[in-house]
């Protein structure tokens, strides 16, 4: 069975400062990894994903995450955050075989302070 750990439930950060949201996963087989974002009162949106190939993946709004197999991590980073990045971020994992059920972490609330 797979699992995801997001150790930080809330991360406050000042505007234009860098941020890292941590994610570690556990699985006995190879995985796909995802970060989803949920803005207040909205649905889940896929932010970025690792399926195969380059271990560094980027989103269109400046976030990036790196798949580190040896450390079983997929931390999300942004060098300079904006107020509009305030949201809850969910790390998720699915196994590459079978029907790829997605398992989510408990989420990290990013609060950007002006």
């Amino acid at each position, binding site marked *: 069975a797979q699992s995801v750990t997001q150790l930080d439930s809330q991360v406050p950060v000042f505007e234009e400062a860098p941020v890292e949201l941590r994610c570690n996963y556990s699985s006995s087989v190879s995985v796909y990894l995802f970060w989803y974002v949920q803005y207040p009162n909205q649905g*889940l949106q896929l932010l970025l994903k690792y399926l195969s190939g380059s271990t560094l993946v980027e989103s269109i709004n400046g976030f990036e995450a790196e798949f580190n197999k040896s450390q079983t991590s997929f931390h999300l980073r942004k060098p300079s955050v904006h107020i509009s990045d305030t949201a809850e971020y969910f790390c998720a994992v699915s196994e590459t075989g079978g029907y790829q059920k997605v398992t989510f972490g408990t989420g990290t609330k990013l609060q950007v302070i002006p």
Partner: protein
Amino acid sequence: GAGVSQSPRYKVAKRGQDVALRCDPISGHVSLFWYQQALGQGPEFLTYFQNEAQLDKSGLPSDRFFAERPEGSVSTLKIQRTQQEDSAVYLCASSPYGPNTEAFFGQGTRLTVV
């Protein structure tokens, strides 16, 4: 359609009432998932369909929860005799199945049991 569509967006039910939540997946998607997201939590897996076959219902919390996808397209999640602890956002996702694919999520149905 362009994305996964769920209806209704909001549902208020009196305790003991039965409810039915609908999911229209992306056309042609083989896989369909239901998730439950309680307030302040990450989405939790409920059940999975591959076409019309319900292959995994390990996440359904009780026998009051029932899901179907009779023609391999639209799916309905039914909750009988609703209780306050059923209050949550119910998310539906679909995917094409196969390697290097991802799940696409709907906006969810927010169920409030009063």
